[in-house]
């Protein structure tokens, strides 16, 4: 589903190299975790996958479902099934959550040549998914993420993911700022989306999240590349020994 080859990324303005020769292959149905110390380039990878401006791909390639992901705009990537759950979900005053979700879903459906969902069908869909994630009607009535607590924001991200049903889910530090109960709700939401047609990339600093979202593969990222890969037991090793051995 996703093939990253020899990826080099720098910040457009400062020219600073962040990712320096990263290779990663994720197949449909797999859940991969990327762990690594702060500043290793984990979040940059997630932004480059989602198409955020400000990053320059100096070398390498990203192929998604056989297509050149780097040639696509952020909205085209989303319509093609790429979803980034933000580490820090953005508050957008004045844009109602339900309207946002509906425009997002219908824009994606339109881009894929599918018919738009009617308002009643859409409402039913969201309500059903929101209940499972403890996202209240009150939250849905507010503007996008405005006034949400850290945990509410993360739950809202997973709700968006559940409604949009992407093929490739990139979760950037979804566990940060969550207490154990919230973590469980979020993890249940993510696990419910695991399927043979869907791939996930879980980016995290701590092993804790991986107790709940059990990965097929774990990669250690340091100084802009993957320095070690292994099974889920690698996460436990890291938890015990820390990242010192992988310091740049």
């Amino acid at each position: 589903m996703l093939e990253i080859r020899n990826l080099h990324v720098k910040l457009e303005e400062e020219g600073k190299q962040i990712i320096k020769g990263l290779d990663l292959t994720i197949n449909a149905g797999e859940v991969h975790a990327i762990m690594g110390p702060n500043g290793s380039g984990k979040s940059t990878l997630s932004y480059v996958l989602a198409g955020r401006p400000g990053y320059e791909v100096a070398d390498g390639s990203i192929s998604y479902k056989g297509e050149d992901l780097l040639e696509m705009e952020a909205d085209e990537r989303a319509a093609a099934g790429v979803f980034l759950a933000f580490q820090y979900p953005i508050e957008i005053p004045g844009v109602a959550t339900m309207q946002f979700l509906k425009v997002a879903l219908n824009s994606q459906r339109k881009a894929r040549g599918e018919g738009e969902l009617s308002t009643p069908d859409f409402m039913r869909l969201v309500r059903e998914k929101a209940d499972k994630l403890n996202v209240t009607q009150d939250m849905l009535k507010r503007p996008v993420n405005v006034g949400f607590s850290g945990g509410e924001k993360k739950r809202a991200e997973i709700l968006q993911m559940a409604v949009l049903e992407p093929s490739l889910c990139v979760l950037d530090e979804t566990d940060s700022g969550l207490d154990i109960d919230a973590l469980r709700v979020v993890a249940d939401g993510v696990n419910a989306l695991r399927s043979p047609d869907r791939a996930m990339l879980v980016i995290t600093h701590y092993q804790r999240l991986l107790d709940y979202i059990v990965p097929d593969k774990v990669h250690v990222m340091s100084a802009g590349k993957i320095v070690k890969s292994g099974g889920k037991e690698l996460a436990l090793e890291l938890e015990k020994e820390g990242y010192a051995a992988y310091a740049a």
Partner: protein
Amino acid sequence: MSVTLMKTPAETAFACAFDAQGPLASVRKSAFQQFAETGLPHWRMEDWKWTDLRQIISKALPPAAGTHAGAKVIDAIVAAAPFAGVANGRLVFVDGQYDAGRSALPAGVEFATLADAGSDRLVAGSTDPIAALNLAFMSDGAVLTFKAGSNIDAPIELMFVTTGAAAASYATRNVIVLEEGASATVIETHIGGEGEYLHNAVTQIHVGENARLDRVKVQEEGLDGIHLSNAEVHLAASAHFKDFTLTMGGRATRQQGFLTFEGEGTESHVSGAYLLTGKQHCDTRLVIDHAVPHCTSRELFKCVMDEAARGVFQGKAIVRRDAQKTDGNQSSHALLLSDEAEFDAKPELEIYADDVVCGHGATSGDLDENHLFYLKARGIPEQTAKSMLIAAFAAEAFDDVESDAIREVLTGLAEGWLDRRKGA
């Protein structure tokens, strides 16, 4: 008399056309003399430095009243007006003259046309040169009285159609009186056709004790039209006044509001939005005069400028020595959608009392890249995402409008503007 100052073709045209006759001859005469002292306001005058009317009104636009346009042209303009189905009654003025055939009013509202009611008892002078010019040439307008204790729920619309059929200037004047305890919603729609023209509109408002007025003004003048307006508002004790203006039309707009608090416990909210593009220019000037204690005033303007459009907001609050416990706050926010767009804000506080809470704020910027990326990352195409963010920006000012039905119309107008922008 310093008529010698009148030197532009437009000023000369006004001077040539002035003929003080009829029932209001003396009022008109002194008003014209007052106008003649300054002529058209220009950049050397502090309050007009961003809006130089000598430049803007470059051609002679002689005063006129009555239309040369055919019924079909007028019908087409009226049909395009936004509030059909929302307004409970409508008074239509075409090219400065009352059009009884297109007007209807519900029972319970006392109405006369200015032309009929016109007596100098009704019209107040003002120190503003444009208001004086209006007084000198005013042809018609609505004189509405809401009787003490009356409650007219559905909005009443005053519609000013300027067809643009003649390169002329039109002066209309309304007087709106809310007697004690009355409550009403009045919509002012200014809508125009193609062609160069000048519309100078004055609305005098008297909100009595415990009375409440919601006023909504939508300005969709033709894109070659010039819109000058003055609202002169007098608020008695415990009156409530809400005023919202949406400016989308006109080549150049100067709108002024002069509010005077004349009784304690009074509250005013003045808000507005601009949706401007091309080379459109809109300058709002507000003067809020807190003459008495315990009054609250709020001003909020959200201004969107695309292409080479220019917006100005000048808000001044005066808190007089006796006006203790005044609570005043104003803010203006600009969204600049192009490098050529421009916004100037001049907040002014003149405070002579010592126990007051007053503040002001102004911001100016373009769309937030993080907001845009978040929407795009969810599959929303860039143009749609931008439209959503622009609409959200303007909507904060719409929220000040009480009526859901009116707010829906305003939202629809903004959506139309955004769709045209997307299509361009």
